[in-house]
């Protein structure tokens, strides 16, 4: 008898046959051969190329936009500006993962009256090819009234700060609405117990302030969208997105159209990490298509992505924690202000809810502020909001441990949240794995190996993130050869279609290879929420489980019909359908017969369960810091993650490793560095940086904390607060002590204080090494220059013909 739910299945302690194995992913061959089609790979007859004009100023009123010269350029077919966007009243839509103000979304897609950040889209052109489109974009003349920008929360929250959104008022449940113009979009407060009394009981109190930098998700594939506004009014959008239904809904809302007038076809997606949940391009491409009568493709480039799409917010955080002489936390307080960017909507809420989520806090108060600044509108980046918060908390905890003389893991164990702990924001935990992750580190070889050598430190940190449930839909068709075509709507960022196929296969008792998963468009499957929030393996997996059970019911009925017996006499058991008198069909046998004996067998499943487990993790890292340059080398890294049951262990490992790499990048070298013009740059870790990671014991610990965890509750939230905090905490043993800023590489006041002449010395970065061709390249016999680091051509063309910054041969130059 098939269990009624995945949890029931798990509790039967039946060994899995498919779950926990490592099949080759179904889309793998296409991806290693270059056949897989990503967003920008779409080719349509008559397709035009689009280019976008973006604001040169971080804060400016748009006085006028003159498109006449662009329109006169041969090859230009359409131009749109913010005035072409339909009027949408200040409506807020509930779009599955948090609320979105449609007016703000519309203005973020194409500015209407005001530019809120450098890179803010102002106009768009469609032309015969990308070169003409860019040429035309350069001919669009924008007149600005430049306004003073605000580039951090401190400045933005001042009473006399320049106001970015004239009609913004602070939303708060606690206070009466104020009519004062402000940059503070929201104030959250959570309270539990009596914080003042709690602190009065503390023997040691540590209060520190932290600043974290803007960091981009850094997906390799830039945003792209192609749209066709057909003559019948139907719009088709091809795009790389984390949520095709969300893209459809947002496009419909912004264009003020019924949702069924739009079909979104999700292409393969080259990374997202939260950054490809919102839309930027589809409405613009659609409007250009409407005006030109042709399909229009718009690709962002890397600069557009960094300047104009949502990074994760920079923040200012104050954390105060008090503990008694036994190391028990008596009170905790946090003040967090997150940059929302040009429009409200930073992840301040999850930041507040996660900041103390790992611990049992008897008395707590958390204040959170969502603050608009003149930067691109921020968006989710893996455990959005939690990373900043945990960096602060874990650093303070570390200092508390030092002052109390308590081992940092013991402290965490003594104060760990567990089943029955009430979070400061209210909910009580069911069974969770915080303690188990701490114990895993305690028992690890890494923790029990002494760290020796100068300038070395060891840091440890814990972290938490939610898992979402939300809605998913799946259909599954049994083919005559016994294989099952699985159709689902969760765009696949990292192998999820295989994980979902494995859950269907397990339930049906067939091989994972006998399931053919396909991710389809919004007209071909029921509503499915975004691929994000660690929800897909859980929620779409559950829908697949339901579809498999539906197939089982139909197979049982079909077998009963063939045997002339009642369905109650027939049972589905591990891929076989068995009835009275030892009669049995294999799944394949009955599939073949079913094709001849009745309607097609099609399973349908949907889920809107919201009971996934939250994910805890504890990490430990050993680092060595060069006291002269500040360069940090990671010597060893161990991650203990509570994942529940790993459906496909290889991809669980990949998620952990990826999260660690991103966390290290955040801690050590990724940031937006702004000048007064709001120009920014950023850097992500490369292979030689990750050399330090490889030598670490980055074993993920997939043992679930609880046997009752549903097999579908596989947390894939790998990144998170712990890495950054662990990296920070390692500094406590080193010259200069702890560091209140992320990333650490560029800001080292302790080093600077000792060696002021080194203030301008930055650790040479691999990117810089590549760019500084004169340092690291050599010129070969043909006059070509190539980088000795990666043996890659950096420039090209005979040296004698080379102009600075280009490599156009003499013959081409003379041809113009």
């Amino acid at each position: 008898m098939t269990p009624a739910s995945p949890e029931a299945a798990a509790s039967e302690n039946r060994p899995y046959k498919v779950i926990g194995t490592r099949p080759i992913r179904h889309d793998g061959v296409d991806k290693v051969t270059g056949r897989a089609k990503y967003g920008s790979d779409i080719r349509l007859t008559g397709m035009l190329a689009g280019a976008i004009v973006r604001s040169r100023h971080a804060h400016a009123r748009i006085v006028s936009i003159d498109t006449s010269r662009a329109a006169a350029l041969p090859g230009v077919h359409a131009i749109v500006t913010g005035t072409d966007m339909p009027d949408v009243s200040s409506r807020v839509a509930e779009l599955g993962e948090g609320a979105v103000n449609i007016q703000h979304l519309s203005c973020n897609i194409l500015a209407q009256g005001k530019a809120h950040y450098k890179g803010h889209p102002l106009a768009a052109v469609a032309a015969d090819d990308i070169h003409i489109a860019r040429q035309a974009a350069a001919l669009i003349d924008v007149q600005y009234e430049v306004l003073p920008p605000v580039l951090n929360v401190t400045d933005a929250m001042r009473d006399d700060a320049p106001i970015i959104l004239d009609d913004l008022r602070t939303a708060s449940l606690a206070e009466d609405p104020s009519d004062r113009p402000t940059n503070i979009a929201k104030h959250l407060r959570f309270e539990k117990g009596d914080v003042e009394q709690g602190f009065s009981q503390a023997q040691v109190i540590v209060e520190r302030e932290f600043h974290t930098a803007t960091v981009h998700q850094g997906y390799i594939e830039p945003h792209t969208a192609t749209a066709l506004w057909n003559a019948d009014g139907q719009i088709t959008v091809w795009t790389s997105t984390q949520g095709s239904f969300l893209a459809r809904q947002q496009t419909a809302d912004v264009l003020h159209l019924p949702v069924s007038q739009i079909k979104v076809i999700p292409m393969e997606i080259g990374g997202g990490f939260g950054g490809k949940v919102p839309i930027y391009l589809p409405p613009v491409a659609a409007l250009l298509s409407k005006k030109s009568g042709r399909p229009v493709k718009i690709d962002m480039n890397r600069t557009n992505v960094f300047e104009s799409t949502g990074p994760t917010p920079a923040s200012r955080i104050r954390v105060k924690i008090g503990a008694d002489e036994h190391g028990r936390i008596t009170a905790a307080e946090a003040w967090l202000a997150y940059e929302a960017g040009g429009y409200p909507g930073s992840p301040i809420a999850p930041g507040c809810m996660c900041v103390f989520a790992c611990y049992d806090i008897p008395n707590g108060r958390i204040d959170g502020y969502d603050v608009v600044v003149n930067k691109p509108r921020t968006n989710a980046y893996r455990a959005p909001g939690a990373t900043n918060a945990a960096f602060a908390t874990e650093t303070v905890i570390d200092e508390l441990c030092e002052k109390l003389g308590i081992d940092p893991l013991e402290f965490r164990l003594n104060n760990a949240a567990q089943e029955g702990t009430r979070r400061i924001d209210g909910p009580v935990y069911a069974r969770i794995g915080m303690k188990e992750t701490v114990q895993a580190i305690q028992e690890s070889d890494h923790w029990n190996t002494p760290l020796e050598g100068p300038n070395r430190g060891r840091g440890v940190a814990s972290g938490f993130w939610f898992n979402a449930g939300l809605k998913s839909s799946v259909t599954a068709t049994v083919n005559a050869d016994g294989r099952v075509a699985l159709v689902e709507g969760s765009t696949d960022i990292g192998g999820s279609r295989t994980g979902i196929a494995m859950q269907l296969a397990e339930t049906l008792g067939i091989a994972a290879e006998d399931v053919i998963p396909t991710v389809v468009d919004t007209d071909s499957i029921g509503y499915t929420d975004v691929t994000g929030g660690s929800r897909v393996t859980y929620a779409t997996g559950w829908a697949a489980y339901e579809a498999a059970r539906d197939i089982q019911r139909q197979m049982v009925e079909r077998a009963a019909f063939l045997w002339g017996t009642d369905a109650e006499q027939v049972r589905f058991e591990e891929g076989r359908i068995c009835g009275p008198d030892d009669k049995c069909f294999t799944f394949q046998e009955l599939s073949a017969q079913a094709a001849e004996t009745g309607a097609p067998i099609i399973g349908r499943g949907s889920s809107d369960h919201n009971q996934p487990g939250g994910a805890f993790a504890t990490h430990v890292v050993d680092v060595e810091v060069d006291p002269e340059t500040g360069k940090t080398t990671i010597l060893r890294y161990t991650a203990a993650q509570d994942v529940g049951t790993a459906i496909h262990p290889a991809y669980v490992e990949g998620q952990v490793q990826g999260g660690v790499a991103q966390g290290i990048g955040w801690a050590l070298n990724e940031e937006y560095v702004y000048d007064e013009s709001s120009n920014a740059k950023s850097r992500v870790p490369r292979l030689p940086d990750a050399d330090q990671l490889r030598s670490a014991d980055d074993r993920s610990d997939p043992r679930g904390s609880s046997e009752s965890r549903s097999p579908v509750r596989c947390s894939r939230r790998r990144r998170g607060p712990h890495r950054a905090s662990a990296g920070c905490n390692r500094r406590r043993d080193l010259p200069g002590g702890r560091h209140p800023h992320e990333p650490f590489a560029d800001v080292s006041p302790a080093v600077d204080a000792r060696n002021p002449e080194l203030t301008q010395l930055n650790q040479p970065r691999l990117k810089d090494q590549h760019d500084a061709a004169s340092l690291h390249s050599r010129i070969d016999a043909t006059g070509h220059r190539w980088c000795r680091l990666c043996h890659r051509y950096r420039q090209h063309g005979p040296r004698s013909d080379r102009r600075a910054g280009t490599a156009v041969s003499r013959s081409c130059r003379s041809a113009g």
Partner: protein
Amino acid sequence: MTCKRIVRITINGRLEEFLCKPRQTLLEILRDTLNLTGTKEGCSNGNCGACTVLLNGRAVDSCLVLAVETDGAEIETIEGVASADGLDRLQSAFLENAALQCGICTPGFIMAAKTLLEENPDPTEEEVRFHLAGNLYRCTGYDKIIRAVLDAAADRTPRQETEE
């Protein structure tokens, strides 16, 4: 108005001829003119390596190569790696080691790794790391890629010894 030039190349073993303007990069021609979209555009300034192809046997960022300068050259792209007999060992090693998540950087990595194994059939881990330093991988921490390349190398080396 700039005239287009005729350029002749051998691509994945096949003679090919195309017209292009001097400002067009090899990446643009591959993707838009020759419809070989397996080579990806990530940054357009030589940072990410997603556009890696082989130009006369050397790995290049095709976004930094002008198409007009490839006249007479031999170019290999990801589309030419597998054969009618199946996947190259590198490709299957990537799959077996789960060395891709979103997969956008995978063609670039495979092309770069291909040149490594041709120059150095038995690389150390450090050599693999530094040879692939020109390719960015954002989804996972590089470890599985290293393992895949080392696995592919391990499978190739005995074969080469036999052939010798």
